[in-house]
Each structure stands twice: as structure tokens, then as C-alpha cells.
């Protein structure tokens, strides 16, 4: 009897299981595309914007359309990670899901762009690009790193117009401690005119200096030939200044686009160069930054790699022209560009591509990619209830970073840890985008799957402890809590039955089962990848 009964239930369970799989996949009546739950929705909550009009038209050339809308659960996690480098908290998820306003996605985007974490996260990206580190090969030294970092953070926080930001970096003179922007010229790898020109080309034009013809390299370097450095009596202070020995007559210099300019003896060539660079018609300036922002948010540049865009015109670059115009029109307001992209259906579409993609149609889904090392570590620390903390004794002055500080806010690229190196944080030696390595490795998998660190983080987690105590009263509640904390969503029926089965048949103690569920979700692609 009992045997028959259990078999019957097994049969029932399996049938239900199949039915649920069938239920979770159905067809979106409007587009004819299959809806995959819990990642996709069947209705667009977002109106089409100017980006979408162009992208939809572009995709139609390939007989493709945008993918399904991502679900609200996917959206909140995606936009939190992309804008603030931070996971949404369970109460933030609840508030968003229960929000009935039709434009709640737009409201959330605005709110996130105003957060401190937005400034921290994007300062981190700028520091990668500007090579902010105290030691070899950049050698800014710790106190200059702090000054420079604070300056960049402040500018991002107050949303300084991008043209002013770049102009300050290119034209400042003074002490590395007191005029932090001059550190741009101290973080260029070498201090000769061609090393400086190389860094300028890479950072603000998105091109590889070394690929330019020799004459063009010489022409561009000439704008930086008077940049000089001197020490002061204060330890490690350095003044960046223009060599006052000017030529007696005016000189002729040639811009990278071939146009010439006459510079009189009193003028600062760097300013003349900045005037040329920062203008609406410059072929590099706007294109470089909007392509970079597109790549950060969409997972791949319209032109890739983002720092080698010279004379590359893959299909679809019209979208960069549109964004470039928007940048100028908005008075170089970078947040305007973020808003345009984040509020587009293109950004809000599903990360599940429709089968194999034509290489030109990368816009037709949101590209999955691993969280950055710093973001992943912060997420794990938040979960465990305890931050990392960093100490660097050498070089002096020694740096102490308390545990409360986020790793995304770590100013100095020279301060690192085995975790950060394992998960591919850039060394900030060159400013190349390829320095960050988000690709999975076996060492990363070993750490996540089997390290005592992860084990401890799960056991000590105050947020998960709630689930550990819930499990005795209400298993489903406990499972919901774990899912919301780790994956920012609720489990599907299918997932609940898999877990129920693990409770019933694994032969493990309840606390082991709960630990294993958290462990499995932490090791799922859905946790580790932005999606």
C-alpha cells in the first residue's frame, strides 16, 4: 500500500513537473516569439525611444527584431548592477515589483543615477581608463592617488559636463596634490611627448597611437612637447608645468585630422589641442565616449574593441552618430546618454538571443557577462555581512581601507587581493579595455565552488540566517527568501520542486540543505553573470 502510494505520488510529481515546464514556456501573441519565464515578459512597459527606432530599422535589414522585454525582476537586477555596481536589496525588489506606476522603470533609472554608488562605480571605470595606481608602471604614489581619485569622484558625483572634465584633465598645471587633474600627465606610462600623446589618443579618441602613420604621431606629440615636471621640497610632490622656454616666433602644428594651426609664443599648445578635440565636428571625441558607454551598458561596443575605433565602420554605427549629436545637444551631459540607453527597449530586451546570431546583429539581445571582480566581491560581502578591508604598508604613506568601504570604491589600482586578481580586475598599467578580464577560469570556479571563504560567507550571512530560521516553519518562504537575496527574484514552481526533492531525498540535515541551496544559487550563472 505504502509502496503504491509513494509510486503514485512520484508519478504525479513527474507529470506535474512536465506540465510546469510546458507552462513556463508559451508564445507571445504579438511577436510570435516564445516567452521564457521568469526572464521575459509579454508586454513592453517601455515606450519605443529614438534609439529603438533606429535599431529596429537596422535589425529589419537582417529580418530580425528586438527580443522580448525582460521581466521586472530581471530589469531591477540588471539596472542596479549596470548603474550602481550593486545588487538590489530584497525590500527594494519588493517595492519595485509592487509599484503600479506605468513608468516605474524610468523612475528607478533616475533614482539610481542620483545615488552615491553610481558615482563610485563609474569612478572605478574612469580610474581604470585613467590608470589610477600608486606603483609601477604608473607610480602616482599613494597621496596623489587619493587626491586624483577624490577629484574624479567629485566630478562624476556632480555630473560635470564631459567637455569640461576632459578640458581640465588636458590643460591643468600645478601640484599633483593641490591640482589633482595634473595627475593625468603623471599617469601616462612614460613622460615623453609621444607617451602622453599615446595616452590622450587612447583615452579620449579611442584610437591606438602606435597604429597612426609616423608623421601623424610626430604631429600629435608636438602638442605635448613642453609638458614638464619638477620636484618640490615636499616628499613626492611634483609640479606639472609648461616649459617656459617658448620659441620666439609662432609655430605651426598639425592636428591628427591634417588641419594646421599657428600657435603664438604665449599660447598653451595643450589648450589649442583641447579646442580642436572638444568640438561637435571632431570625428573622435563624442564617438569615443558614447561607444564606451554603449559597451559598458550593453556588454559590447557598437565598435569593438572600444579603444581601437579608428576608421572602423561596422554596420550599425549610425547609432553612435545619433548619440554623439545627443551629447552635444545636451551640453555634454553624460547622464543624458545613460538615460537614453537605459530607457530604450534595446537595453531592456531579454538576454536570451533567438538562436545563433548574425555577427552584425549584436543589438538584438542584452549580452550576458560576468560581474566585474569588484562588484562580485561587494555582492558576496554584502551577503556575508562583512566587508573586505585592505591594508597597504608599502609604499608609504601606508593606506588602510576599513571593512565598511566598498571594493568598487578602492582608489588605488596597486592595492589588490588574491580574489581581485583571480577574478580579472585590471592592473591599470595601460588603460586598455582588454586589461579587465571577465572570462571564467578554473581558479575562479574552485573559489566559488569549494573555498572556505564562500562556505564561511554563507554560514555567517545575516540575511540568509533569516531563511535558516524560516525553514522550520515554512519551507517555501525560506526558499523565496534565498532566491530574492541571491538571484533578486522568486523561484519558479519547477525550481521549488527540485529543491523540495533535495530536502526529501538528499539525506542531508536541514541546515546542510539550506546551505547547499544558497551555495548552488551563488554558483549559478544567473548570479555570476549580469543578464
Amino acid at each position: 500500500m505504502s509502496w503504491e502510494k509513494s509510486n503514485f505520488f512520484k508519478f504525479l510529481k513527474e507529470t506535474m513537473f512536465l506540465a510546469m515546464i510546458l507552462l513556463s514556456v508559451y508564445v507571445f501573441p504579438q511577436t510570435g516569439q516564445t516567452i521564457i519565464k521568469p526572464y521575459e515578459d509579454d508586454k513592453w512597459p517601455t515606450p519605443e525611444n529614438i534609439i529603438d527606432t533606429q535599431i529596429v530599422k537596422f535589425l529589419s535589414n537582417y529580418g530580425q527584431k528586438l527580443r522580448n522585454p525582460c521581466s521586472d525582476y530581471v530589469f531591477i537586477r540588471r539596472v542596479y548592477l549596470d548603474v550602481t555596481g550593486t545588487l538590489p536589496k530584497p525590500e527594494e525588489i519588493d517595492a519595485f515589483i509592487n509599484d503600479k506606476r506605468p513608468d516605474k522603470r524610468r523612475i528607478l533609472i533616475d533614482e539610481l543615477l542620483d545615488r552615491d554608488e553610481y558615482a563610485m562605480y563609474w569612478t572605478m571605470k574612469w580610474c581604470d581608463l585613467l590608470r589610477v595606481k600608486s606603483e609601477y608602471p604608473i607610480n602616482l604614489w599613494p597621496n596623489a592617488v587619493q587626491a586624483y581619485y577624490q577629484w574624479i569622484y567629485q566630478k562624476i558625483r556632480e555630473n560635470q559636463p564631459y567637455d569640461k572634465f576632459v578640458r581640465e584633465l588636458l590643460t591643468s598645471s600645478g601640484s599633483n596634490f593641490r591640482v589633482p587633474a595634473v595627475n593625468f600627465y603623471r599617469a601616462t606610462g612614460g613622460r615623453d611627448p609621444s607617451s602622453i600623446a599615446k595616452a590622450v589618443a587612447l583615452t579620449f579618441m579611442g584610437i591606438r597611437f602606435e597604429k597612426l602613420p609616423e608623421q601623424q604621431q610626430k604631429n600629435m606629440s608636438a602638442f605635448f612637447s613642453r609638458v614638464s615636471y619638477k620636484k618640490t621640497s615636499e616628499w613626492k610632490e611634483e609640479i606639472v608645468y609648461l616649459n617656459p622656454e617658448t620659441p620666439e616666433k609662432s609655430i605651426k602644428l598639425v592636428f591628427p585630422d591634417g588641419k594646421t594651426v599657428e600657435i603664438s609664443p604665449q599660447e598653451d599648445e595643450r589648450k589649442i589641442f583641447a579646442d580642436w578635440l572638444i568640438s561637435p565636428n571632431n570625428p573622435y571625441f563624442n564617438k569615443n565616449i558614447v561607444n564606451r558607454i554603449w559597451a559598458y551598458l550593453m556588454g559590447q561596443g557598437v565598435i569593438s574593441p572600444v579603444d581601437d575605433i579608428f576608421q572602423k565602420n561596422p554596420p550599425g554605427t549610425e547609432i553612435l552618430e545619433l548619440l554623439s549629436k545627443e551629447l552635444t545637444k545636451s551640453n555634454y551631459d553624460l547622464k543624458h546618454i545613460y538615460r537614453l540607453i537605459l530607457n530604450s527597449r534595446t537595453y531592456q530586451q531579454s538576454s536570451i538571443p533567438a538562436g545563433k546570431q548574425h555577427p552584425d546583429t549584436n543589438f538584438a539581445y542584452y549580452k550576458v557577462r560576468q560581474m566585474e571582480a569588484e562588484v562580485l566581491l561587494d555582492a558576496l560581502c554584502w551577503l556575508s555581512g562583512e566587508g573586505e578591508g585592505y591594508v597597504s604598508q608599502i609604499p608609504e604613506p601606508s593606506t588602510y581601507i576599513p571593512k565598511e568601504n566598498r571594493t568598487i570604491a578602492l582608489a588605488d589600482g596597486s592595492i589588490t587581493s588574491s580574489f581581485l586578481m583571480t577574478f580579472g580586475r585590471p592592473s591599470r598599467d595601460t588603460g586598455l579595455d582588454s586589461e579587465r578580464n571577465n572570462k571564467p577560469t578554473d581558479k575562479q570556479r574552485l573559489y566559488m565552488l569549494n573555498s572556505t571563504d564562500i562556505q564561511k560567507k554563507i554560514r555567517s550571512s545575516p540575511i540568509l540566517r533569516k531563511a535558516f530560521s524560516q525553514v522550520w516553519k515554512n519551507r517555501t518562504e525560506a526558499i523565496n527568501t534565498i532566491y530574492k537575496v541571491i538571484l533578486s527574484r522568486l523561484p519558479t514552481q519547477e525550481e521549488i520542486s527540485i529543491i523540495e526533492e533535495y530536502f526529501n531525498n538528499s539525506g542531508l540535515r536541514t541546515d546542510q540543505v539550506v546551505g547547499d541551496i544558497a551555495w548552488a544559487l551563488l554558483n549559478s550563472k544567473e548570479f555570476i553573470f549580469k543578464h
Partner: protein
Amino acid sequence: MKRIFLLNITLLFVICVSYAHSEQNKSQAKSVIQIWMWGGSSQNDTFDPKPSAGYDYCGPLDKTIPTNVPGIEINASLPMLAKIADKYSIIRSMTHGINAHESAAYYMQTGHKPGTGLVYPSLGAIISLFKGYGKGYNGKIPPYIVLTQSQGRFSEEGFLGPAYKAFATGGDPSQKQFAVEGIVAPGISDQQQIKRRELLQKLDLLGKSIPDDPDFLLFNKAEEEAYEMILGETRKVFDLSEEPDEVRDRYGRNWFGQCCLVARRLVEAGVPYITINYPGWDTHKQHFQTMQRKLAEFDQGLSALIEDLSKRGLLDTTIVWCCGEFGRTPKVDWSPPWNGGRGHWGYCFSAIVAGGGFKGGCVVGESDAKGEYVAKRPVYPEDLLRSILRLCGIDPDEPLPNDKGLDIKVMPYPENYSGEGELKEIMKK
């Protein structure tokens, strides 16, 4: 007829060349074990005793013991090593003059003085570059292992980058289970590992939804490789329960002894570079009490390792080198608060080398009457490190491949070098 003759000549030539080639490979050291006496061990109390210098220099460790090599005596605190002195050589004139831990450690591990603007890779990173993946090593275990705690930033991969970083095992091999970080998770049985892996695969909903993403495929492959270490054969190299009790006892049932045993097992598995990061030698206070305890386990563990390697025929292809970042002040400080302590001393200290093409039973160099300064044949860190590289078949003056675009040699002599060069006197041809 003529043609056959030519053919024969060619064949003979080919055989000779390949024979010479294999001979060359044979004589090369395949693995290196570094025993790093972190903190700096006393030369007087180990391999360079000075009994005639009196109590102020010797404290209670004022006796010497003859070794099995006529003419060589070492401190009586090392009786087991005294019996196998024919298997290793002693360098009594190591010197660099640096008395700060980090700078001295950096110099001893990289062969470069600090402060040049570059962070150079350690010997282990260089050897794992030349003898690691793609260079004849295919093991699942990383090619550069540190037992058990990482040595920190001044002694690792330097500008070679994270791919050449040492893998620090964590854990303690003298415990019931050697919990190698990432490979052996304490408290989780194999059964649970297998079950939860199944759970993970079942719950991988997003992965199943995007089966062809290239990053997801990489992720799956990395995970499979990780599980080969977690559940496969690979981890057995760390499982000391496979060793007979007598062997484990001979090495000493303590952290150091069992690390030596793991090191031997890693050599058998083909790992090119193993460091035993052996702390506790920075004895400013309580020096002699600490020495009496530590030297006993050191003597037992190291002698067991050298003997065992020799018995298994591995010593010819395995270099063992052992020293700290510096020595300790020969004159004991009896005043408070030291009350019988020894400070940092980089002017003259000892190192020992064994196997892999180093001759045994020799002494290189000489210190003065009290063991304070070098009297004969100074040996600088680069001399010792270059000799090890040379025996590993790596020319210290060849270019060091790197992705930083640096035009740099493996380990050149510094400018204004005034030493006497590599340790030719104890290197077999």
C-alpha cells in the same frame, strides 16, 4: 654503397644529437623545492657554528657535531642532517647587507634589489613560466605551489602577472584532513559534493536558456576542470593518508614535517616549483627556547625529505634550497626587553642546497671568526638564484618573455656587480 654510408653517417649523427639532447634533459633539474625560513634563521645556531666565539655568541647552543663528511661540522642542534651532509652543500657566505624583512625577502626571491620601479617575479614564477603549462607540464595542479600560506606581494609573480602567481594551499597537512583551499572543503563529504553538484546543474536555469553563449561554455569547461580537482584523482596528491605511518613519522608529525612530505608528493606529480613558506624564525626574543623546539622539527623534516628523495631516485632531478631572507645577529642581545634574542642580519648568513645538479658534501665560502661578516667568497642572492636557474636549464641571460613589452633578461647581474658569480664550484658539469 656510398649512399648507404652517407645514410649511416646521417643516422649516427641523428642518434648522437638526440642522445646528447636527452642527456642534457636528463641532467636538468625538473623540480625545485624551496624551504623559506621566513623571518631569517640564525647561521650560528645551524650550519655555521662558532663555538670558540664564546657564550655571548652561542648561548646554550655552543656545541658542534661532526658530519658524515670529514672536515665539515655543523651545530649539534642538527644531528639528523649531520648524518647526510654528503647529500647537500652549505653556503656560509650569503650576503646582501639588507636588514629589513620585505626588502631582503624581495632580493632573496627575485635576485633584484628593490626600488628600481619594476616589481620583478620571484624565482618560482620564472620557473613556472619556463617549465609550466605549454612547456612540458600538463598537471591539473598549478605549477607553482606554496605550502601553506601565501608569501605576500613582494615575492610572487611581479610583472609577469596573475597567471604566474603561486597557488597557496591553505590548510595544515598535519591535521587529520589537509584542507587545501578550493580543493578540499572541510566538513563536506564527497557524497554531499556529488549531490550538491547535481542540484547546481538542475538549478542552472539561465544556463539552460542560453546554451551557446561563448562565456557560458567557458564557464562550464572551467567548472569541469575545477571538479576534476575537487572530486577527481588530482587531489590525491594532497592526501597523506595514502602514506605509510612509518613514513609520516619519519618526516615528523608536525606542520613542517608533513609539508616536506607533501612537497615530495608534488615533485612526484611533476610540479616544477614548490615553496614551503616556513614562518617563525624572527626570534628577537625567546630565541633559544624557540630554537630548541624549531630546530628539532626542522632537522627531522628536512633530513627526511632529502633522504626520501634520494632513496626514490628523485634527488638528481630535484633541487632543494633552504634559507631565510637574512641571518641573525651573531652576538646575542641579553639585555631587556630581548633577554637573549637575535636581531636581523643581512651581512653574512648561511644557505643550503641539495640535488638537481648541485654537488653534496661541500662548503662554499667562509665567515669570519664570529660569523659576522664574509671572510671568503661572498655569495649574493643573484649568484645563488642564477645557479638554480642554470641547473633547471634556464639561461639567466636569455630574454624573459612578458606581455608588458619590457625588454628584460631572466635574471641578469646588476650594474656594478662585483661578486664572484654562479656557484660553479658545487655545480656538476
